[in-house]
C-alpha cells in the first residue's frame, strides 16, 4: 500500500537520476574524445549532442567544452544534469518519509555539489574529475537505495523509472548513431569506441566481442544482450519484473494494461534477431521499442497514479 502521489515521485526520482547519470557520461566521453583534434572527435561530439536531442548539435560540436558545461550546469536548461538532479531531490523531499536516511543523504550530497556557487569553477578546474565523481556518487545513491530500502512497492517504482528511462536513452543513442536519418554510417574505430563508452559498455563488450568494433556487433550487444545491465533487452526484462510485482495486488478494471505492454516489449527484444533488425533497417525496430516504452509509461500513470475515482469508490 502506498500513496499514488508518492509512487509517482519515486518513479520520477528513478528517471531523473538515470537521466543525470547518462548526461554526465555523454559529456565526459565528448570532452575526452575531443581532446584529439580529429574528424572522428567532432563526430563523437555531434553524436553526444544529438543523443541529448539538441537541434544545434552541428554548431555546438565546434565548442564541446561550452556545450558540456551547459549540459551539466545550466539551470535554465530543463534537460541539464543540475536540473534533473534538482528535480530528483525535490521529489525525494516530497517523499522524504518513504526513502531511507542513507539514500536521502547520498542524493543530498550530490545536490549540494551541483548547486555549490563554485561548481562552475570546479568544473573548469577538472571537468573529467567532476563528472567522474558525480557518476560515482549516483552509483552510491543507487547502491544505498538497494542496500537500505525495503525492496517493496516504493523501491520497485523507483527501479521502474530507472529502467524505463535507461531503455529510452540507449534506444535514442542507437537511433542517433545507426538510424536511417544518418547520412553515413559510423565506421570509425574512435567513434564506435566512444559510443560504447557512452553506454558504459566498452569493457563488457570487449569481453564478448574482443576489440573488433563492428556496428552490427555493437547493435546486437546494446539491444539484445541478456546480461549487460544497459542493454535494452535487460532493461525491458526488469521493467516487466518490477511491474508484475507492483500490480499483483491490484484488483479492478483496466489494470492489465501496463503488464501486457511490458510483456510484449520484453518478448519483442527477447526473440529478436539481429539479422532481421539489420535487414529491415534499425529505425523501424528502434521506433517500435521507443513507442512501446512511451506506452508503458502512460499506462503506468493511468493505472496507478491518475486513475478515475469512480472505479475505485466503495459501492
Amino acid at each position: 500500500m502506498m500513496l499514488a502521489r508518492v509512487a509517482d515521485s519515486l518513479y520520477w526520482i528513478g528517471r531523473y537520476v538515470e537521466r543525470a547519470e547518462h548526461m554526465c557520461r555523454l559529456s565526459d566521453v565528448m570532452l575526452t574524445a575531443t581532446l584529439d583534434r580529429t574528424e572522428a572527435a567532432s563526430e563523437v561530439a555531434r553524436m553526444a549532442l544529438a543523443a541529448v536531442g539538441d537541434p544545434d548539435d552541428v554548431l555546438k560540436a565546434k565548442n564541446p567544452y561550452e556545450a558540456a558545461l551547459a549540459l551539466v550546469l545550466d539551470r535554465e536548461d530543463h534537460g541539464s544534469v543540475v536540473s534533473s538532479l534538482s528535480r530528483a531531490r525535490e521529489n525525494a523531499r516530497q517523499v522524504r518519509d518513504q526513502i531511507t536516511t542513507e539514500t536521502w543523504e547520498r542524493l543530498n550530497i550530490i545536490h549540494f555539489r551541483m548547486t555549490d556557487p563554485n561548481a562552475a569553477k570546479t568544473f573548469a578546474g577538472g571537468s573529467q574529475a567532476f563528472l567522474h565523481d558525480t557518476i560515482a556518487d549516483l552509483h552510491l545513491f543507487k547502491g544505498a537505495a538497494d542496500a537500505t530500502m525495503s525492496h517493496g512497492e516504493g523501491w520497485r517504482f523507483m527501479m521502474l523509472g530507472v529502467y524505463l528511462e535507461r531503455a529510452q536513452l540507449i534506444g535514442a543513442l542507437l537511433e542517433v548513431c545507426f538510424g536511417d536519418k544518418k547520412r553515413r554510417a559510423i565506421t570509425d574505430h574512435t567513434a564506435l569506441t566512444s559510443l560504447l563508452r557512452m553506454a558504459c559498455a566498452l569493457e563488457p563488450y570487449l569481453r564478448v566481442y574482443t576489440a573488433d568494433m563492428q556496428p552490427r556487433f555493437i547493435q546486437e550487444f546494446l539491444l539484445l544482450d541478456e546480461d549487460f545491465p544497459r542493454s535494452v533487452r535487460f532493461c525491458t526484462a526488469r521493467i516487466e519484473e518490477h511491474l508484475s510485482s507492483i500490480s499483483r495486488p491490484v484488483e479492478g478494471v483496466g489494470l492489465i494494461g501496463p503488464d501486457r505492454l511490458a510483456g510484449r516489449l520484453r518478448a519483442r527484444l527477447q526473440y529478436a534477431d539481429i539479422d532481421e533488425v539489420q535487414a529491415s533497417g534499425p529505425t523501424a525496430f528502434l521506433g517500435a521499442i521507443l513507442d512501446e516504452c512511451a506506452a508503458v509509461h502512460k499506462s503506468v500513470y493511468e493505472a496507478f497514479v491518475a486513475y478515475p475515482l469512480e472505479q475505485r469508490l466503495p459501492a
Partner: protein
Amino acid sequence: MDGSTAKTKAADQAAGATFALSPYDEMLGPEQAVRPHYAALADRLSTLTPKELAERQRTLERFFLLQGITFTVYGAESSTERIIPTDLLPRIIAAEEWKTIETGLTQRLKALNMFLADIYSGQQILMDGVVPRDLVLNAPSYRRQMQNLYVPHQAYANVCGSDLIRQPDGAFAVLEDNLRVPSGVSYMLANREASKRVFPGTFRGAGVRPIDRYPDLLLTTLKSMAADWRPNPQVVVLTPGVYNSAYFEHAYLARLMGAPLVEGRDLVVHDNMVYMRTTTGLRRIDVIYRRVDDDFIDPLTFRRDSGLGSAGLFNAYRAGNVVICNAPGTGVADDKAVYAYVPEIIKYYLGEDAILPNIETFLCREPAQLSHVLAHLDKFVVKAVGASGGYGMLVGPHSTKAQQQEFADALKADPDNYIAQPTIQLSTAPCLIDDAIEPRHVDLRPFILCGEKIVVTPGALTRVAMRKGSLVVNSSQGGGSKDTWVLTDGKDLQP
C-alpha cells in the same frame, strides 16, 4: 475580574524589582560557582580548545545539512538552503526541577482540555463568570462548528508545546501555551542525535533521560483517539506540502511513526468517510494528525480559498468517521488574552493552585489596566492577541520613542487586541558564539501529549536568542536552538 488598583501597584513593584535583578544563569550559581548538574559539562569544556569546539560545531552543522534539516531562503535570483542556527552546548535541567515542570504541565493541559470541552458544550465556566463570555466567544480562534461535537477522552489538544521561561529567581513560569499545531519537536529529536555525536563521553556520564520514544508515544496517543471504534486505526500526517517551513518536521515524524505523509490532494471524502489515493485504490483513514491550520483544513467549513485541506473533511469528523488531531478550535485556549485566566481555569476545574505560575499579564481591554500599560510602555512587552512567531510585538526597554508612540496609538484604537507583560529577563545559558563561550538568553519548550492519558517527554526544545542581549528566541527572528538534557535521579521510570 477587573484591573484593581491593588493589582497594578503590586505589578509596579514587581516590575521594578524584576528589572533590578540580573538574569538567572543556567550554568553559574552565586559567585560564579558552577551548579552541580553542570559540573561534568564544565569539566569537559575546560579541556577543549576553542579550535576543537569550533570543529565540533562544524560537525554538528554538517549533520543538520546532510539530513536536510533546513529551511529555504528565497532570494531574487536563486534560493539557498540554510540550517536553523544550532548551538552545540547542551542546556541541562536537574531532575528535581524537571519534576515541577512535568507535574505543572500535566495539570495545565488537563485543565485546558477540560476548559475546551466546557466552552464547546455546556459553557459552565462562562455562566459562572470565571472567564468573560465575550472574550471566549468573540475570539477568532473560537470555532462554533465544534460545538457539541464528541471528542474522545475530551482530548481536544493532543499535542501541546508550552513555552516556559526561567525567571531571575530561578523559578519556571509559563509564557505561552501552543495548542494549535505546535512545532519544533523534530529539532528536539535531531539536536539530541547531534549532541550524542558531539559529546558522547559527557553524555554517557551525565545520566540523561532518553527522549527517543516520542514518535512511538505520539502514535499511541493518536491511535487512542480512534481505538473505541476501529481496532487498528490508520493514522496519517497531513502536511501543507514541501514549501512549508516545517515540512522537514512533518516528514520526520511521519517516517518515525511509520505513518503515511499525506497532502490535501491525496485525500478523497466520500459518504463522510475519508480515503487516501493509493496505488491499489482508495484506503480509509481513521486519524489525521494535521499540521495544517484550522482555517485551511476544509474549504467547505473554513476558508473557501484553501487548497491545502480536503473538501468535506470536517463533516466526516462531525459524523464521527475520522478524528482530526489537534481538534479544530483549540486555539481559543492559547489565546493571549485567555492565557491571563489560566490560573483561574485550573482552580475552577481541578480545585488546585497552578503549579507553574503565569507571567503577570495586563489585559488592555480593561480600562484601568490599559492606562497603566500606557503609562509604562517602556517597561512592558506588548503583544497582539492574535499574532505569533514574534511578530506584532513591542519589547519596551529595547524600543524607540517612535515605536512606543505607534503602539500607544494602536492600543487606544483597538485595546481588545493587546495584552502587556512586564519584560522578563530570560535566563541565560552558555553558547558557542564565534568560537568563544558566551551567555545567551534561552527559553524552554517541552512537548506534552494527551490522548487516553497525558505524557510529558523528558526533554525539550531550548530556543536561543543568538544576538547578544536579545530576548526574542523565535526562529523567524534569528533565534536558534540547542539540545536539552534532563538528568535522571535514578527514580524516574521510562515515560
